[in-house]
């Protein structure tokens, strides 16, 4: 079963490219939708979870943490494919888009299932390569620039991680998580510490945390709408944040230094991201900074090192991938209908685009942590975890960060959706079905997870925290 999650998207890519160009161009969207929907269904219904682990090539495993990620990968990919169908112009580009999405699904599924540093690195590269091409998709100056920045910083991160893996291999004799953990933990040699530091910094670059966030706003903003939703929603979360959670909690362990570094980086990211978001006029750029800020919460929560903190981090990761994808989809709808991303030139779009307006309200309230939406519960768990671990100031500051989040989103709402309709946009219509449907699906998930929280606490949080 675990291997199927890699083989089926791979088989789909091969199938799409063996020939029959015309037929395959039509088939591509259905096939890629089917693959992502199948992945979601597999995780929800837990089909063959324990059995079918026949070929142990990469030593694949699916535990609670992996399944949360697999679920979000499936959902976000499904929605991005639909949005791509609604926003990308010519059939040939669409075809390439679906192929690249499938490729990065392979990469991400691999990342979350492997139990080995080197395999993880390989899958990271697969994901990164498809992400570079996806960002540069429009082939204009800005997207090239965004893609290039991501490429360069990503390469730096890769080099750091690879050299770190080399050092660890030297000590452990193997790169599997278990072996490395046994060799590394409790060891104070400077070389090992360097290796750990290199790896952690590499992941911080990948995740776009302050002060390594330089590439992120450009990459998110210059990418086409559907790609931004995909990259911001899940790609950076899997390559940078999930990996951090997995590696720190299972391999390096929570030493005091790592905890402090993570918490401080997290807190700085929360504030830098939120304050920068407050000053943006470009809709997508604001969302990008907001993303940095929310990722800060995840890392801050991870930094507590307690089971509850890790559970809060994972839960917020899931929620964030849902509501941030949704906000990028909303921005895609707005951009498509008005032809601009400048928030100052819009006003009162809720009047003409009610679905986009209301789903964005759901998403932003969830981001700001207003109950009863999903984001509230994950933030609450994060704050409780910080409080229980004795970091009272961090808990208080995290709560203040929520207020700034609310402030910049209210500012966004006031300029874009809420208010009197701008006369220039009096006659625009709601964006097409393939943008509206994913927005509604994601808003429903946000609302549903929030309202049926007691159920989710048992199915998501408890399994994740029992891992540690």
């Amino acid at each position: 079963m675990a291997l199927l999650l890699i083989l089926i998207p791979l088989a789909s890519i091969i199938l799409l490219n063996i020939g029959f160009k015309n037929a395959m161009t039509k088939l591509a969207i259905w096939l890629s939708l089917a693959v992502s929907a199948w992945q979601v269904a597999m995780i929800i219904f837990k089909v063959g979870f324990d059995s079918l682990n026949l070929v142990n090539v990469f030593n694949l495993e699916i535990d609670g943490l992996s399944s949360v990620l697999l679920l979000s990968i499936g959902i976000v990919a499904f929605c991005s494919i639909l949005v791509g169908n609604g926003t990308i112009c010519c059939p040939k580009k669409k075809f390439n888009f679906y192929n690249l999405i499938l490729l990065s699904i392979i990469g991400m599924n691999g990342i979350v299932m492997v139990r080995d540093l080197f395999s993880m690195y390989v899958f990271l590269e697969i994901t990164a390569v498809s992400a570079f091409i996806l960002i540069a998709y429009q082939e204009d100056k800005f997207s090239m620039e965004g893609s290039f920045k991501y490429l360069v910083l990503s390469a730096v991160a890769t080099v750091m991680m690879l050299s770190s893996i080399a050092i660890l291999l030297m000590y452990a004799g193997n790169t599997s998580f278990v072996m490395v953990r046994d060799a590394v933990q409790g060891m104070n040699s400077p070389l090992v510490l360097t290796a750990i530091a290199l790896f952690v910094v590499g992941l911080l670059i990948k995740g776009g945390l302050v002060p390594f966030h330089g590439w992120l706003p450009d990459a998110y903003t210059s990418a086409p709408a559907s790609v931004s939703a995909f990259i911001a929603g899940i790609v950076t979360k899997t390559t940078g944040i999930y990996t951090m959670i997995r590696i720190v909690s299972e391999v390096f362990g929570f030493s005091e230094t790592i905890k402090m570094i993570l918490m401080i980086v997290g807190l700085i990211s929360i504030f830098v991201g939120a304050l920068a978001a407050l000053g943006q006029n470009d809709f997508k750029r604001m969302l990008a900074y907001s993303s940095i800020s929310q990722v800060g919460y995840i890392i801050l929560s991870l930094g507590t090192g307690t089971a509850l903190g890790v559970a809060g981090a994972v839960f917020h990761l899931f929620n964030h991938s849902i509501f941030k994808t949704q906000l990028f989809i909303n921005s895609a709808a707005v951009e498509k209908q008005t032809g601009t991303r400048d928030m100052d030139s819009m006003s009162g779009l809720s009047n003409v685009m009610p679905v986009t307006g209301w789903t964005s309200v759901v998403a932003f309230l969830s981001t700001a942590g207003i109950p009863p939406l999903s984001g509230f519960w994950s933030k609450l768990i994060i704050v409780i975890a910080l409080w229980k671990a004795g970091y009272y100031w961090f808990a208080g500051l995290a709560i203040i960060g929520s207020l700034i989040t609310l402030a910049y989103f209210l500012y966004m709402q006031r300029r874009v959706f809420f208010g009197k309709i701008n006369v220039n946009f009096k006659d625009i219509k709601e964006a097409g079905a393939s943008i509206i449907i994913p927005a509604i699906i994601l808003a429903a998930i946000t609302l549903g997870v929030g309202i049926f929280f007691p159920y989710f606490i048992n199915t998501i949080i408890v399994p994740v925290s029992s891992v540690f």
Partner: protein
Amino acid sequence: MKNETLILLTVFVPVLGSFLLPLIGKISETTRNLCALIFVLVSLICSFLLLPTVMRGETISALYVQAVNMNYFYADSLAVFMAIVSSLVGAIIVLYSFGYISHYEHRNEYYFMVVLFLGSMMGIVYSRNLISIYVFWEITALACWRLIGFFRERTYVLRADKAFLVTVFGALMMLIGFLNIYGTAGSFDLGVISKSHVSNLAVLFIMFGILSKSATLPLHTWLPDAGVAPSPVTALLHAAVLVKIGVYVFARLFVVTIPLDEMWHTIIPIIAAVSALVSAGAALIDTDMKRIIAYSTVSQIGFIFLGLSIGNDVALAGGLLYILMHGLSKAALFLCAGIIEQATHTKDITKMGGLIKTMPVTAISFLICAFSVMGIPPLGGFFAKYLVINGAFKSGQTTISFVFLFGAVLTIIYLFRLFILIFMGHSKVEHPEKEGTPVMLISVATLAVLSILGGIFINYPAEVVMTTVQQIMGVVR
């Protein structure tokens, strides 16, 4: 029907029903309006049905959730009393909206938010744990935001954002306080918390939340600004529901559950006194009709806080009665203001005058309710005010009591000023239109009649209040 079911119906019929209203509204406007009213009436009726049980001194718990080991809802006589007051006033305001809102855009959103708001209020009232209080608390803030910005003007939306940010700031502070309590008591359940000691730091943080919601100094600035909302909404926010949420949570946490340290019995009355005086002063000089009434609310909330915080049974009974009487009459004042505003197209009282000739029903209702707020016997407001100040004297805090007496005098002055400038003298309005639609007049008149009846038949609400006070004093002592 079982009592547990009644509580669940009270909360979830309006909360879940509100989501249906926009859909119903797409089919038929009249059906939607009636549904909105019915949802609120369900809350009212169910709460009335709970009354006999709680009057016997029993309490009811509902919706036990295994996963977190907590009861979600709980009813005692305080909760039922509060629920009846707010759903009664809420129902009349919804009725009034039928006339008021009928010619504006976004009617679906309006009814959606109003009913959601009232439903969340019920949720707070019957909450058994801190998390559930917090959840419903924030839902009301959200509904408020949409409603204050209802007319979509740029400055209005700005003020809506301000209200949202101030109340959320308060709520987040309150959340820190809740976490602090959780740290010491190990649970969010009010039943567990009442057995453990709560630090003054937690009380301080929670007070931020309460003061921001009930618009007491220094977090009151959003409330006068919120007057830009449609009049029934301001009535809802200022009179019936929103500001009372703060008061109710104060009563629920610090009067019923957690015995406060002695110093708070002095600090909170002082905050209340400053708040009452400053806002009364602001009400004296302002010229915007709705802002004056709003400042008056801030001022009257001070009286309620005085009653609840001074710490003896007379004042407590007065504070609770005050919630009822103030809700009824202040709602009527705002609704009258709405009628006047629609007829004259202005809110500036210096441009009005002599309106008693063209709108007698409004004028008389306004006067009766203003009398009740001033505390003129035999109207309901008199008994409440008398008991509060009497209780304050009894507790020995003479200075505070005199300050509040002075506040009461100011109330009389600014409300008379308001009445005279609007209704007496020569008309400065060119072509004053007629009074509002019949439903609007009926709602206003009903509230006025209730204010009178509340005074004459004071023994009925007083009975409920005395039971509540006995229960509370029994628990705390």
